[in-house]
């Protein structure tokens, strides 16, 4: 009897194992915790599962601040996830272990689907390292009520775009109102400051990737303008150097403007704002520019199910899938794809100035932002920017220091490459 019981048990185990082996493959997916997007992405993956019942997903959601620690631990341990969601700043860091989608599809045809301004983020040498699921652009918001009370208007079209000085004067005028306690709530980040470098026609890394801050003058101009804004208290100290989220400060209704990006729109509109707000064009320095960016899905060459992951990524890279995802989000995020009509719905009027800034931004800006060195040095660069913005070092000295920081990292990178 005992033997019979044991035999039945063994048979059951074998059947279970065989059943398990023949059931759906499970791909491990890491998503960023984001109230706006995480559920929609999961919904899209469910849709893929319905279309391909042999593929299932095991999804972990982690905050962006913990992604690097998690991903680096997995990468160094050789336990690559099948699919991971990353932001602009991080995708190029993982170009080497990334799954090359060019092995699964026609590289040129694939890239031709995307706007030139977004292509640099997903290309590394000959490799195509990911799929851009949504596009972002930095943008300038203003408090309509405060502007109306101050009797000041914002540019209504591209011909009325402010210069930096006009922008500064306008903010000063609005700040004369007793209820306006802050000028421009400006996110304390390297990416948001980069706007000014590009508007000054400068760049972080030379076109050949060999030198950091190749042109001193544009960088000095940007730094001087910025520290002038901070010194005049037009940028609140709780933003720079206080690092309080600009969106939170703007929501209080006592800030004239917000220098942030289109990702704020969904929260502002669905959460309800206690005042009327609008968006306008970025001021121009030597030229007009914004910072393109977005979110991406990528796979890894050595993940357990990389072939299946590639198929999922290619599915998402179809224009119809990208469109469906963006429209499910309600239209607050931009499409990275060429010739794609998206119904931005209630966000249309807010996105219009940002799309205009984006169209005026040269492609090299994205190439510059996509350089790994810009991300790898961001903590040191931000510290130096804070020292300069708060008047503790001159713009000239800051440029020298920033160049040293970037050059050290580029040297390390070049050394590694040569080894």
């Amino acid at each position, binding site marked *: 009897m005992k033997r019979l019981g044991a035999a039945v048990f063994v048979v059951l185990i074998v059947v279970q194992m065989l059943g398990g082996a023949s059931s759906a493959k499970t791909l491990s997916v890491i998503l960023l915790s984001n109230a706006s997007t995480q559920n929609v992405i999961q919904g899209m993956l469910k849709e893929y599962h319905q279309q391909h019942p042999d593929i299932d997903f095991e999804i972990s959601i982690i905050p962006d601040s913990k992604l*690097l*620690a998690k991903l*680096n631990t997995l*990468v*160094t341990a050789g336990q690559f996830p099948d699919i991971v969601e990353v932001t602009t700043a991080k995708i*190029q*860091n*993982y*170009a*080497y*272990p990334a799954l090359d989608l060019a092995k699964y599809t026609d590289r040129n045809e694939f890239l031709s689907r995307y706007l030139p301004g977004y292509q640099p983020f997903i290309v590394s040498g000959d490799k195509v390292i990911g799929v851009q699921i949504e596009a972002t652009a930095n943008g300038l918001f203003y408090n309509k009520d405060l502007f109306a009370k101050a009797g000041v208007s914002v540019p209504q079209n591209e011909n009325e775009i402010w210069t930096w000085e006009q922008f500064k004067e306008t903010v000063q005028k609005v700040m004369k109102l007793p209820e306006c*306690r*802050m000028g421009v709530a400006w996110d304390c980040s390297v990416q948001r400051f980069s706007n000014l470098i590009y508007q000054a026609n400068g760049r972080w890394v030379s076109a050949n990737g060999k030198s950091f801050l190749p042109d001193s003058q544009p960088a000095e101009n940007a730094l001087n303008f910025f520290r002038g804004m901070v010194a005049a208290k037009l940028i*609140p*100290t*709780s933003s720079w*150097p*206080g*690092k*309080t989220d600009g969106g939170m*400060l703007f929501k*209080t209704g*006592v800030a004239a403007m917000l220098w942030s990006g289109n990702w704020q729109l969904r929260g502002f509109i669905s959460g309800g704002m206690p005042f009327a707000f609008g968006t306008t064009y970025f001021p121009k320095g030597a030229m007009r520019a914004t910072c393109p960016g977005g979110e991406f899905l990528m796979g890894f060459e050595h993940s357990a199910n990389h072939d299946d992951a590639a198929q999922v990524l290619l599915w998402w890279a179809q224009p119809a899938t990208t469109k469906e995802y963006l429209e499910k989000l309600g239209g607050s995020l931009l499409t990275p794809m060429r010739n794609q009509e998206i119904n931005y719905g209630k966000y249309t009027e807010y996105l219009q100035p940002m799309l205009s800034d984006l169209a005026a931004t040269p492609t090299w800006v994205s190439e510059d932002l996509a350089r*790994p060195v810009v991300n*790898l*040095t*961001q*903590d*040191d660069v931000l*510290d*130096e920017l*804070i*020292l300069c913005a*708060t008047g*503790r070092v001159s713009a000239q000295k800051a440029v020298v220091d920033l160049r040293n920081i970037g050059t050290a*990292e580029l040297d*390390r*990178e070049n050394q*590694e*490459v040569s*080894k």
Partner: protein
Amino acid sequence: MSTPETISSADAKSSLTPARRSKWGSRLAPYLFLLPTVAMLFIFSIVPLLYGMWMSLYDFDIVHGRSTFVALQNYWRLLHDPQFGLSLLNTAWYTLSVVPLILVASIAIGVYLKKSTVARLIARVGFYVPFVLSPVVVATSWKWLLNEDLGVLDGFLKWAGMGTIPWLTDDNWARISVIGATVWNLVGFYMLMVLAGLSQINPDLYEAAKIEGASAWRRLWHITLPLLTPTMLLIVVLATIHATQAFETILLLTDGGPAGATRLIIQNMYVSAFTRLQPGYGVAQAILMLPLICLVAWVQMRVFRKAGAL
């Protein structure tokens, strides 16, 4: 006649074996009991430590998927890294401020709240609540409280006709704010330890001292504090561990800023390993901290041994 001999030798064998067995068993038993702990210590402490030492001799380049043996170069680089020096200094002042403040505050609160009246029980809960809050809640609350533009504290100072204080945006004020937030966060936990220590003190001692005419201060100085010494040792050791491991609250409150003024060694390691993607360099900092922490622990033990707490 040989049979009895055989029998007796067999008896001898059978009588010796259990004795030997029990002797070996009693010798082995302590080691067997220790084995799980030693194994855990080996797997989770010794192996990672050795692995960390090995890692610190390499320059890992995650971006390009390479690792290069650089011997002691990471350590050499540390000696010339001003950010590392600053974070070491920051950790020193943070620990030297937080530990004594926690010790003094927890004893003061514990002694004051020793009697179990309703009001004091409520106050105990009030002091303990911050400890059970998540670091995110603690940091966010303090960040808004100390906000220079919209914060309650600066709002009050403005209302009172005084200037604002750059709580989080000036190097020194940011350090003070970080210390304040940490002490507020942890003091409730240590207060409980003090209360537990106080409950062990015989009330007759206070009664006798009172009869002898000793003032409250003298009773505190000559009875409470000496008898609380073992608790104080524990508080100092635990608070030092807390201080050297401080990370989340500071990261969320100041992000190590302004310009690195509140960046402690743990955050510096994190930035090196995970933001700059140089895990070898990050681990080298941890390895270098090891003798420093051992030194601090040794000094603490010496001081308390002299004071008779050990």
